[in-house]
C-alpha cells in the first residue's frame, strides 16, 4: 500500500495555441523530497500552478487528489488552506517591512482592536528557528541577503501549517553556501514531516537531495525515477530531459584568439556616491580579438558593477582609469556612446533590465540599433520585420511569430532575443552577463554554440558567470573578481574550480 500525499491524474492544460500539459500524471509519496526536472517550457511551473490553484479547477482537465481526497482549488487561498505552500522564484516579500511583519502578513495576531506585536515577534522567532535562521525578527527585509530572504519565505510558508511544500527553483539566485544551507533546511523539514516538491535546473543539487525525480518534456511525463531502485546520474537525467544525450555540455571551439587586443582596462576605479563606497578598486584586464574571457567571482564581488561602469556608466559612478577600446582611449558617459564605439552589454537580469517584456520580439530585436532599419527617423517596417525574421530563424527562437510579446516566451528564448538584439548591433566587444542563467540544458548548448560562432567571426567576449563549470568550459582565459578587484588571472586549460574559489574568496 503506497501512501501518496498527492496524486495529479491526467492533467491537460491548454493556452491559446499551445498545449502546455498533455495528460500528465504525477504522484508524490508522503514525506519524500520529490524533484521535478525538465527543460524550460517543459511544463513544470505550469503543473505547479495547476496544483496551487493559480489556474482554477475549471481551467484544466484532470483531477487532483490530496491526502486521498479529490480537491478543487479556485485560488492560492484554497490550496494554502489545504496545506499546500508554494514558493516562487520571485520572492513575495515586502522589502520595507520587518521580518516578523512579513512572516505574519495576512495572519496578524490581534489583541482586542490592536496588533499584538510581542506575540507576533515570539511566533516569528519560533518560525525562524524552524529554518535555522538566526536573525532579529525586527530587521527589515531589504537589509537581508538573498539567501536569508529565501529562508524567510520558507518560514512564512511554514507558518501556514503546510504539509506539502512546493519550491520553484529556490536556489536559482543563491550562491553555493546559501544553496547548501537551503538544501539542508529542506532535508530537516522532511524530518519534521513536510513533503517537498522542488523544481530545479541544477542537476547536481537534484541528485544530492531527491528521493524521487520526475522528468517532464514538452508537457508530458517522461519518467519517474526512484532513487532506491534506479541508478540515476546526470547523463541519464539530461538524456531524459532533452530526449538525446549531450556528449559535451560545452561544444568544442576550433577558432583561436588573435594577437590584437580589442579592449584593455587599466587602473580602473569606481566610487558609488549613492552607497558612499568604492565598488571597483584598481582593476586591470584585457581581452583579445576572438577570445572568450571568463569573469568569475561571487555574487556581489563587483563583476556587474565593472561591466556597467565600462558600458556608459548608467549608475553615475565616479570613475578613474583608462579604457582602451580598439587601440583608442575612451570614456563613455552614456550606453549609447559605448554601443556606437563597438561595446555591448547583455545584462544579467533579462526581465528587469534586458528586455521590454510587454513589447514584441520584433521591437526588442531592433531596439538598440533602430538607425539600421530607419531613414531620417522613419522606421522601414519591412526591413525591421525582415531583420527579426532572420534572427528568429538563425537563432531558432521558438515562437508563433515575430509579433509575439517577449513575456510569453520561455527563458531560453527570451535570452536568444536578447542575444539577437546585440548581434544586430554587431559590436566588437560583448560583455555577456550570466548568459545561461535560468535556462535549460538544451538552450544553454545553443547559447554556447552562438558564443563560439561569434568569436570565430572575430568578436571579443567577456563572459560573467557564477557557474564555475561554465567558466572553465567556455573561456580561453579567466579573471577572478573579489571585493571589487581582480584577484587573479588563470589559464582555462590548467584552472580548476578549487583554484577559482580560492581567488574568489580572497580578500
Amino acid at each position, binding site marked *: 500500500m503506497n501512501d501518496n500525499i498527492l496524486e495529479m491524474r491526467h492533467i491537460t492544460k491548454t493556452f491559446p495555441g499551445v498545449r502546455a500539459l498533455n495528460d500528465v500524471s504525477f504522484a508524490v509519496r508522503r514525506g519524500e523530497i520529490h524533484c521535478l526536472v525538465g527543460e524550460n517550457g517543459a511544463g513544470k511551473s505550469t503543473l505547479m500552478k495547476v496544483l496551487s490553484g493559480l489556474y482554477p479547477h475549471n481551467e484544466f482537465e484532470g483531477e487532483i487528489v490530496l491526502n486521498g481526497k479529490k480537491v478543487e482549488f479556485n485560488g492560492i487561498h484554497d490550496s494554502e488552506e489545504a496545506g499546500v505552500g508554494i514558493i516562487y522564484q520571485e520572492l513575495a516579500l515586502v522589502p520595507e517591512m520587518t521580518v516578523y511583519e512579513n512572516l505574519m502578513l495576512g495572519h496578524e495576531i490581534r489583541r482586542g482592536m490592536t496588533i499584538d506585536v510581542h506575540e507576533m515577534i515570539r511566533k516569528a522567532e519560533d518560525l525562524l528557528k524552524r529554518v535555522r535562521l538566526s536573525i532579529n525578527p525586527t530587521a527589515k527585509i531589504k537589509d537581508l541577503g538573498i539567501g536569508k530572504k529565501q529562508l524567510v519565505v520558507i518560514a512564512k510558508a511554514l507558518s501556514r501549517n503546510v504539509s506539502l511544500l512546493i519550491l520553484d527553483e529556490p536556489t536559482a539566485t543563491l550562491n553555493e553556501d546559501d544553496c547548501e544551507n537551503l538544501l539542508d533546511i529542506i532535508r530537516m523539514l522532511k524530518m519534521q514531516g513536510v513533503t517537498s516538491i522542488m523544481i530545479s535546473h541544477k542537476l547536481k543539487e537534484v541528485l544530492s537531495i531527491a528521493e524521487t525525480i520526475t522528468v517532464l518534456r514538452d508537457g508530458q511525463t517522461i519518467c519517474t525515477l526512484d532513487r532506491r531502485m534506479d541508478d540515476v546520474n546526470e547523463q541519464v537525467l539530461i538524456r531524459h530531459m532533452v530526449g538525446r544525450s549531450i556528449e559535451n555540455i560545452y561544444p568544442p571551439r576550433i577558432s583561436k584568439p588573435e594577437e590584437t587586443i580589442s579592449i584593455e582596462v587599466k587602473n580602473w576605479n569606481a566610487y558609488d556616491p549613492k552607497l558612499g563606497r568604492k565598488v571597483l578598486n584598481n582593476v586591470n584586464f584585457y581581452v583579445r580579438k576572438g577570445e572568450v574571457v571568463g569573469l568569475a567571482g561571487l555574487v556581489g564581488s563587483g563583476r556587474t558593477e565593472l561591466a556597467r561602469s565600462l*558600458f*556608459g556608466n*548608467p549608475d553615475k559612478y565616479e570613475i578613474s582609469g583608462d579604457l582602451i577600446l580598439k587601440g583608442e582611449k575612451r570614456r563613455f558617459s*552614456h*550606453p*549609447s556612446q*559605448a*554601443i*556606437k564605439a563597438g561595446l555591448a*552589454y547583455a*545584462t544579467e537580469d533579462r526581465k*528587469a*533590465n*534586458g*528586455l*521590454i*517584456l*510587454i*513589447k514584441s520580439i520584433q*521591437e526588442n530585436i*531592433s*531596439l*538598440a540599433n*533602430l*538607425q539600421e532599419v*530607419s531613414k531620417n*527617423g*522613419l*522606421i522601414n*517596417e*519591412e526591413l525591421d*520585420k525582415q531583420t527579426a*525574421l532572420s534572427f528568429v530563424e538563425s537563432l531558432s527562437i521558438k515562437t508563433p*511569430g515575430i*509579433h509575439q510579446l517577449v513575456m510569453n516566451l520561455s527563458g531560453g528564448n527570451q535570452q536568444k532575443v536578447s542575444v539577437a*538584439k546585440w548581434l544586430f548591433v554587431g559590436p566588437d566587444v560583448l560583455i555577456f552577463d550570466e548568459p545561461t542563467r535560468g535556462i535549460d540544458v538544451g538552450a544553454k548548448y545553443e547559447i554556447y554554440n552562438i558564443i563560439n560562432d561569434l568569436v570565430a567571426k572575430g568578436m571579443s567576449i567577456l563572459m560573467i558567470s557564477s557557474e564555475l563549470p561554465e567558466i572553465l568550459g567556455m573561456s580561453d582565459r579567466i579573471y577572478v573578481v573579489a571585493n571589487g578587484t581582480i584577484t587573479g588571472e588563470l589559464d582555462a586549460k590548467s584552472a580548476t574550480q578549487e583554484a577559482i574559489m580560492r581567488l574568489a574568496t580572497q580578500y
Partner: protein
Amino acid sequence: MSEFMTVVKKNVREYGMYIALAAIMAVFTILSKGIFISSRNIANLLNQTGYIAVLAVGMTLVIVIRHIDLSVGFLSGFLGAIAAIALTQWNWSLLPTILFVLALGVIAGLFTALPVASLGIPAFVASLAGWLIYRGALMLVTAGTGTIIIPNEAFNAIGNGYIPDILASETFLPGVHKTTLLLGAIAIVFAIFSQIADRKRKIQYKFEVSSSGLFAAQLIFVSVILGFITWILAGYNGLSWTIVIMLAVVLVYDFITRRTVLGRHIYAVGGNPEAAELSGIRVKKITFVVFASMGFLAALSGILFTARLKSATPQAGTLFEMDAIASAYIGGVSAAGGVGSISGSLIGALVYMSLMNGMNLLGTDISLQYIIRGLVLLLAVIFDVMTRKQKA
C-alpha cells in the same frame, strides 16, 4: 460568422471603445429624439472635443513614459491669455502671436521636465507646482483687465470658423459643403488603399490575415462610418478649423508613435526604462521631448479654447488636465507604462465629450453629470483591466 466572433473576441479591447462610443451616441440620439446626431450638434461636439483631444494626445505620451502632467490645464489657460494680450495690447498680428505662444508652451514643457528628468522628482509634484504657478500667472495677467475680449476675426476663426467651400454650387446638392464631401471621399479612398496594401504585405510575409470576406466587410464598415461622418458634417458648415487642427495633430502623433524611431523609443522607455537606457536610448532626452510636446499641445489647446470663446478669462483651463487624463485612460492608456495609443485617446476624448454634450442637450443636472462621467471612467478602466487579464 464564427471567424467574425473570434476576431471580435481577439480585438475586444480595440473595438470595445468604438462600440462604447457608438452605444453612447445611439442612446443620446434616441433620448434627444434625434437632436444629438444632427449636423449642427455633431459639429458642435467635435469643436468642443478639439481642445481636450489635443491635450489628451500629449497626455497619452506622458502617461506612456510613466509620468503625469497636472500643469497643462492652467498652462493652456495662461497661454491663451498671453495670446489675447499679444493681439489686443501689444497689437501683434496673428502668425507671430501663435508662434510665440507655441514656443512658450514648449519652454514650459521643458521647465516641467527639468526636475523630473534631471533630479528624479516625481512628475506629480513637479507638475503640481506648475499647476499652482500657471494658475497664479493666469490670474496675474488678467488682473487688470478681467476677461479680455479678442476682436481679431482671423484668430477667432480658429475656434469658430469653417473651411471655405471652394466647390460651392447652387444647383448641385445645395446646402451641402462640397469641399468637405470631397475631402471625406479622399479619406475613404486613402483608408481603403492603405488597408489593402497592408494586407498584401502581411500575406507576403505569411502573417495571419482575416479571410477576404471578412476583410471586405471591414473595409465597407470603415467606409460607411467615414462616409456617414462626412455627410453629417457637410450638412452643416463643413469641416471646422478646429476639426482640421485636431485631425492633423492626431494623424501626426499617430504616425510618430507607430512609424518613427522616436515613437519606438518613447514606448520602450515606458515599457522598461532601465532596459531602454541599457539599449542606448537616452531616457532623459525622451522625457524632455515628451514633456515639451505636452507643453506645445497645451499651448495649442489654449489657442483653440481662447479662440472658441473669443476671449481670455481668469478661469480658462480649469480642470482641463483632468479631462485630458480621463480621456487618455478611457482610451486605454496604462499607468504601468508603455501601453496606449493616440487613436485610442482620441476615441476616449470623444466618449468623454459625447457624454458631456449629450447630457447638456438633455438638460441633465450638472451634479449628476459629474457622477455619470466618473462612473463611465471607472467602467472604462475596469473593462480595460479585465480584457488585459484575459489576454495574459
